[in-house]
């Protein structure tokens, strides 16, 4: 299972762009990279997913370099409501390659947005 490493916490101010980088040196060929957001007392919520290069949706962008050993979640112009924990997950699906429980949520990155 590919292990991920993220900063424990980050601070930002409203209106700034925030980039959270995740390292996944042992990513496998079939693995996708997925980011979830979790607010206090709520379940995680899907933000974005990608395999390579760049993916953009209405909420965020995901940048994945050619070697895929890291990825960067980019949140444009954050607001106070973006204060949350962000999880980077790497995996190909439960049971893939003989592994189980591939969706490993690490401790995530706690983003604090200040006014």
């Amino acid at each position, binding site marked *: 299972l590919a292990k991920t490493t993220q900063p424990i916490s980050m601070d930002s101010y409203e209106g700034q762009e925030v980039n959270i980088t995740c390292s996944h040196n042992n990513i496998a060929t079939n693995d996708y990279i997925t980011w979830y957001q979790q607010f206090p*007392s709520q379940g995680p919520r899907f933000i974005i997913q990608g395999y390579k290069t760049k993916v953009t949706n209405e909420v965020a962008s995901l940048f994945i370099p050619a070697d895929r050993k890291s990825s960067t979640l980019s949140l444009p112009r954050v607001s106070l409501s973006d204060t949350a924990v962000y999880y980077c997950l790497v995996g*190909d699906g439960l049971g893939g390659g003989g592994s189980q429980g591939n969706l490993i*949520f690490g401790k995530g990155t706690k983003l604090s947005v200040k006014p």
Partner: protein
Amino acid sequence: NAGVTQTPKFRILKIGQSMTLQCTQDMNHNYMYWYRQDPGMGLKLIYYSVGAGITDKGEVPNGYNVSRSTTEDFPLRLELAAPSQTSVYFCASSYSLGQETQYFGPGTRLLVL
């Protein structure tokens, strides 16, 4: 659609008691999951199911049991509650396995004293 619903929201158990955490989804998803989240930590997979009648262990299954008699419901059973099971429990569902988007319920906070 209500999405994924969980009951109860909060429960206090005494050591040795048993209880069932309920989870229901109305999205007709085949795949359902149970996670636990300890304070300040990420989520750990307890059990998952790929369809009615089929369940399998995740990373931390000890002390728990599950069943899946219908597509909609995936209850989690604690037979002999222990303080180590104090946690927040999240149920999730997805259309297919793994990398597909998982939709999470609001969670059940369990305190074992």
